[in-house]
């Protein structure tokens, strides 16, 4: 193997292959940094599971950290941050509506009350 797998050729951000409003994709090294952050957040989540903070505080923190991971994967790995705004609006609108719909459904059945 003569070349490293993380190519230096990817030093500069690649233009997106899609039309519309967009920016350059992250480099390979930036993708690795994002993955390291995701791994660290996961480690913090697991650490929180074993702590003896108040249940409400722990659960809120866990949900917040999961939200950060979700947004990072969607924004950087799925390229929603760089893609056409139509895709971002389509996914975010659908996701938010689905979340509110199911929370309302569960509240109706008294799950969180």
């Amino acid at each position, binding site marked *: 193997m003569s070349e490293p797998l993380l190519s230096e*050729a990817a030093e500069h951000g690649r233009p997106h*292959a899609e*039309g519309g409003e967009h920016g350059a994709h992250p480099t*390979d090294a930036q993708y690795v940094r994002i993955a390291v952050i995701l791994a660290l957040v996961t480690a913090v989540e697991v650490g929180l599971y074993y702590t003896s903070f108040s249940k409400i505080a722990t659960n809120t923190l866990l949900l917040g950290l999961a939200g950060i*991971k*979700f947004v990072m994967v969607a924004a950087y*790995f*799925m*390229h929603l941050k760089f893609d056409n705004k139509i895709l971002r609006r389509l996914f975010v609108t659908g996701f938010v509506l*689905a979340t509110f719909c199911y929370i309302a459904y569960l509240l109706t059945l008294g799950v969180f009350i």
Partner: protein
Amino acid sequence: MAAEPTTLGHEQQATAVKDHGHVTNTGLSNEKLAMWVFLGSECLLFGALISSYFLYRGRSVSGPGPEDVYDIPYTSVSSFVLLMSSLTMVLALAAIQRADYRRLRVWLMATALLGATFIAGQVYEFTTFIREGLTISTNLFGSSFFVLTGFHGVHVTLGIVMLLSLWNLSLRGRLQQDKAEVIEIAGLYWHFVDVVWIVIFTVIYLIP
């Protein structure tokens, strides 16, 4: 969603034709838009399954509960493996966009292997739970847990099949730089499966 050429601006038409060889109302490829719409419908599917888990949580009258069977360190490692497979997937996309086909195949195979490792871990977890007396018909917790995580496992398995097919196409030289969008669309599916697990890992395993 093909549009009358007159309804598009010249710049939009030029971009669409240059990128994918076809013109659409949005300037986006129909395949990619369709994948995002599909992922939106998948949000509803997994939302329903997660809601069912919440609905039935703590209502089992017999059999083992979550605190009796969950092995958090083990599941944490599985989650880490799936998270890293998203990195290798995005590196595969970056490779084909540079026309670097050797690295494309390396990262596609790495993603498939990490996915297979996750599935092997899930099979081991399921068999352990069954040995400890929790099956899909033991109680409400067992039913909602196995259906939710089982559906996710099926999605990962389909993703692995997709990745191996792409690897095979690349090996035969039928996946060139101009087909980078195929990898991007497969990647969207794979990353979605990853974000679903991010939610499942937190709300099902970590939040008691």
